[in-house]
Every structure is written in structure tokens, then in C-alpha cells.
């Protein structure tokens, strides 16, 4: 397969392009995704190529977008929706949680809503208020939704393709600060990266580090430092999706290492780290040699951007947490 160097944004753009070309039922909907190509340019060029009936600039109404996409999906279309920023999904929260997530269940599989909701999330790009949330655990707490968070261009393409082909509604979270952060070789053709299978970024013996989305790369930097200075090796797990959760990979790793650090950007209280800690507690408690650490966002609203680097888990905090865990 030919490959090309792409960043996450380019990989997403190419994937959407190829999906639109391949499947006539795929539609893109969202605010400013048409001529403008989306505020991050994820849909750049697609309006010109596929026209206004495939790449649809909607009115400014998230419940309208998600709600009408549910109808489109009920009637054979496969909508891929862009919500401009994660916090702006809230006006459409009811449609997502009370309908998209429940349609299959309540109709016993008779009616289904295969759709993808793509949305940028996360702090770190000096955005205005409410442009920096990472509230993935809201959606993880909603049976019927899948929650996918790619950490690199290659996965972004494979996971987005898998999401588009998935029979269930998928929330696809794209870390804004990763969009253009780095490039890597991405296969040119469409391919699927299975949803629900974590990626062991790097094997190790002494500590399991679990992260997703943009935090994976930060975790890698921290691990590098920790390994250099502490004569230990760390295993890094990129969950790729938090629902479905690849419990087996997590459990196996922790059984081996006896230690874990979980990293996410979201607030600590009721953040998804708690779910993973619970899983480990249930399945591997006796293997634990030290308390599991959460290196996560604080329990404050994501602050104005001069303070966002204080809010975000830093490499230094990760290093400290990993060291404490290893030397407990």
C-alpha cells in the first residue's frame, strides 16, 4: 500500500473524501463545513467536490443537526456530523443521549442510527472559553454510544473509517492540539482500525501507562524521561476507544507490571480514569504493588487560556506521578 506523510487533520480530510467517494449514502453535516471547509479545515475542498447535498452547511443548531441526522440515519443515510467544538454538543445532548444511543435498544434492533459525530476537544490551543473541554466520560456513561479518540494520523484514518462503517452511533473525538502537531506515514487507501482494540504503543515491565487522544504523546515523553532516570521500563497503552473499553489489554498489562498510571485531560471527579481504576481493582487488585495514579485535569472549569497549561496534565506531573508509582 502506498503511504504519505500526513498530520491528523490531513488524514481526516482524506478519509472523509474517500468515504464520500466510496459510499453515496455518506453525508457530512455541520456548521461551516461547506465552502469554508470547517473551522479547522477538516472538510476542506469537499464541498466543491461533492456538492451541497453531500457536504451540508447546516443552520446554527446542534439539536437540529443531531436530531435530523438521526432521521437521515433511520432512512438509510450515514451522516458524519461535525460539531464545531465539544462543548457545543450540549444543545444536542438530548438527541444524542435519549435517541441516538437508545434507538437500537428500544426497537430491539429494528431501527438503528449508524452515524458518526466528529468533534474537536481539549485545551492547549489558546482557544476562547468553552473551546477546550474534554468531557468524554459523559458519553462513556451513555450505553449505546461508542467513544473513539485517535492519538495519531494513522489511527485517525483507520478509526474514522471503522466509525463510518460501524452499525452504532460513534462519538469521534479529535484533540485540537494534535491536529497539526506531527505527521506520519498514512496508507493511501481506506482501511479500518478496529474500534475497541487498544494499541500497545510500547511494551514494558514495571509500569502500565494508560492514555488516549492527545495525552498519548505527552505520556510517551514522560515515559522516556522516567525510563532514563529510573532504570525501569514502562508499557504504554493507547486505548483508542474508551467505549468499548479493551479491558483485556489493560488487565493483562497491569497483571504484568503491577503498577498503573492513567492520564487524561478531563476533570478528575467522575472522569474516565475512575472506570479504569475500578476495572483494575476488580480484575487485578492482588497484582498491584502501588496505588494507581491519576494524572488528570483538575476539578475546576477549564480556565481561560493563559491558565490552560496549569490545568492540563503536564509531562512534569506525569513524570512525578510515574516515579512515585514505581518507587512506592
Amino acid at each position, binding site marked *: 500500500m502506498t503511504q504519505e506523510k500526513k498530520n491528523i487533520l490531513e488524514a481526516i480530510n482524506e478519509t472523509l473524501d474517500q468515504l464520500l467517494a466510496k459510499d453515496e449514502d455518506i453525508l457530512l453535516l455541520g456548521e461551516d463545513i461547506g465552502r469554508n471547509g470547517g473551522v479547522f479545515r477538516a472538510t476542506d475542498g469537499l464541498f466543491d467536490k461533492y456538492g451541497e447535498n453531500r457536504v451540508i452547511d447546516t443552520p446554527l443548531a446542534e439539536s437540529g443537526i443531531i436530531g435530523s441526522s438521526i432521521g437521515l440515519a433511520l432512512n438509510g443515510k450515514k451522516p458524519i456530523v461535525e460539531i464545531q467544538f465539544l462543548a457545543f454538543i450540549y444543545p444536542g445532548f438530548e438527541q444524542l443521549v435519549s435517541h441516538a444511543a437508545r434507538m437500537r435498544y428500544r426497537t430491539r434492533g429494528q431501527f438503528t442510527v449508524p452515524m458518526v459525530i466528529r468533534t474537536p476537544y481539549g485545551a492547549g490551543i489558546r482557544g476562547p472559553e468553552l473551546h477546550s473541554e474534554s468531557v468524554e466520560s459523559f458519553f462513556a456513561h451513555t450505553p449505546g454510544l461508542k467513544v473513539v479518540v485517535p492519538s495519531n494520523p494513522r489511527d485517525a484514518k483507520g478509526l474514522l473509517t471503522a466509525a463510518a462503517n460501524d452499525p452504532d452511533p460513534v462519538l469521534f473525538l479529535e484533540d485540537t492540539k494534535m491536529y497539526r502537531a506531527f505527521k506520519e506515514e498514512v496508507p493511501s487507501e481506506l482501511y479500518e482500525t478496529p474500534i475497541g482494540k487498544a494499541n500497545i504503543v510500547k511494551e514494558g515491565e514495571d509500569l502500565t501507562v494508560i492514555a488516549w487522544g492527545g495525552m498519548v504523546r505527552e505520556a510517551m515523553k514522560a515515559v522516556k524521561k522516567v525510563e532514563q532516570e529510573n532504570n525501569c521500563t514502562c508499557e504504554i497503552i493507547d486505548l483508542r476507544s474508551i467505549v*468499548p473499553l479493551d479491558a483485556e489489554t489493560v488487565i493483562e498489562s497491569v497483571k504484568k507490571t503491577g503498577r498503573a498510571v492513567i492520564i487524561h485531560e478531563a476533570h478528575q471527579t467522575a472522569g474516565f480514569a475512575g472506570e479504569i481504576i475500578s476495572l483494575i481493582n476488580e480484575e487485578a487488585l492482588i497484582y498491584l504493588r502501588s496505588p494507581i495514579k491519576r494524572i488528570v485535569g483538575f476539578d475546576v472549569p477549564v480556565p481561560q487560556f493563559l491558565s490552560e497549561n496549569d490545568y492540563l496534565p503536564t509531562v512534569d506531573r506525569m513524570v512525578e506521578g510515574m516515579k512515585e508509582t514505581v518507587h512506592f
Partner: protein
Amino acid sequence: MAVDLRNFYEEAREEYYQVLTPDGKCRHDDHRIDKQVMMDMFKYMLTCRIFDEKALILQRQGRIGTYASFKGQEACQVGGVLPLRSTDWLFPTYRDHGAMYTHGQTWKQIFLYWMGHMDGSITPEDKKIIPPAVPIATQLLHAVGTAWADKLDGKDNVSLVYFGDGATSEGDFHEALNFAGVYQTPTVFLCQNNGYAISVPFEKQSASKTIAQRGKAYDIEGIRIDGNDIFAVYLTVKRAIEKARKGEGPTLIEAVTTRFGSHTTADDAKKYRDQQAIEKEWAKNEDPLARLRLYLKNNDLLTDSEEKQWTEEMRKEIDEQFKEAENYPRPTVQQMFEHVYKEKTWTIAKQEKEFLQHLGKGGRSS
């Protein structure tokens, strides 16, 4: 009698469009409705009435759960659905069993729904009936989406969506009408303005006098009709459907009707309105079934004995359907874990396995 229907919509904006008067006279236009259709109307309304009475009794006996009666709204529900084709989409609320039934749902399934069965939301394979929307006004957007998909595919199906007067206060009402206007989707928005959202009368719901006038905000035709007059409902919805099929966009119809009883069996209308006065007025001027009966009899299309016979047959049929529902197997624990996703996740599979083990060891679930 060659009055153009159109004119009535125009003049109706102030008051409402009415064809059949409470004293069973036809103002005009009856020639537009086939006699056979009139008989269907009557029969559907009759069976609806019988079902509703039965359901209320069953609820009192504790054999079904909380139930939402639709007595008084039969004209809206039967008359609105009869012009549909089987390829059209129907989006009912929790009060629109009559609409569902008329479009092909079985009474048995409707019983199952109100008995709390997991399978109660399954609708006929050959029809596109989405089970009742519980969160108010949300289904309007779905009906925009299905209609939009048909339009994009060049199919001339329409999507008919029911909702109440209370629903017009929700943001989703606004977003749905706006989307329908922008994309000119073949959606027919049929509001049953029964005057109340649970206890709240429409005057408290909005400062606007009518719901039909809201169409203007989206450049959508808004029509106000007598919702207790099945001819008016039928003709208006039919016209809106034909318009939608021709690609001429959505219509907002406000059918003014009466909720005869309480909001649901969990509600007591006497707390907040003069139920006696309402029932009296209803019997005199508003009962849509009585009105059609009068018309049919006036025109020698119906006899008492016919009605009696049908009533008996319908009762039997509904009893039969209820029996089937009552004999329907209870949902299993396994079913509870199915259909969350197409494929069970590790987590769900584990929860199911452990729960079944627990039950196997004698743990009870209730």
C-alpha cells in the same frame, strides 16, 4: 360546492378551517371524500374509542401500566394517517396509538408497550412507524431527517409527525421547523392542540394566539383547523402530503381538539380544570366520533345495527389482542443485555454472565 379548498385555508387563519359542523352537517367539500374512506374513518375512530376505554379499565385493574388516553383526538389521529401511503414515515407521541393503529401497528403491540414490555416498541416490518417519542418535541427533527433522506434519494415519500401544543415551546420545535424550511423537506407537522400540556393551558404556554401563525417564522405554510372534524383533518393533511410529494415543502397544521380525560392515568385533570364542564361541552360540540356518526346517519350511510355489530366485533378483536399481549412471554434477562450495540461489548457480556450466574445461584431480580 365548487369552492376552492385553498380559500378556506386563507380565511381559516383567524379562526379555523372546518368542513363538518358539530351538528353533522357538511359545510362544503364532502364530495372530495370517497364514501368508502368515510366508512373507514368511522370504523377506525370507533375501534380507537373502544380500545381507549378498554385500556383505561385495564390500567385501573393494574394489568397495564400508566396509560395516556387519546379520547377526543380520534379525528386527528385517524384522519391524519389515512392519507398516508405505506412507504411514508410516521412519528407518533405517547398519545398517538390511534395514529399508529391506523397506519398498521397492532393493538397487541400497543398493549405490550403500555405493559412495559421491551418488545412493545416493535412496529410492523412493512411500515415505517417509529415508536412513540417520550422526550417532548424531539421526534420533529427525526421526521425532518427521514423526509430529507427521501428527498435526497428522489423518492416521493413523506414523513408525518404528531406532537402536542406543549411541544411547540421546546427548542426542538423551532429547530425542526427551521431545518424543514431551509431544506424544504417533505415533512407534515401535525400539532394536536388539545389545549393542555398536562395541566398547563395553551394561554400559559405562549403569548401567541395560535400555533399555525408560527409557520411564518420559517416561511412555512401554517394552517389552523378544527381537529374534531375528521373531514377537515383528512383534507388538510392530504393536501399537505400531496404538496410535500410534489416537492413543494413542509406544512405546519394546527388541529384544535380536546383532550377529553386526564393527561395520563397518573394524572387527575380535576385538579386544574373544570372537568365536568369540559365533558359536557365535549359531548355537545366536540366529540369527533359523534359528529361523523351524525353525518353518516343524516346521509343514510350508517345504521345503528351496523355500528352495534362492528362494536361487538371490535371489542372481541381487542380482547383477543389483549389476551395475546397478556400471554406474551416476559422479557428475559438475556434480552435486557441485547441490542445495546450490534455486538455485545466485553463489559456488557461480563455483566450478563455474572448476573446469570447470580440468578442461577438463587439470586432474585425483584
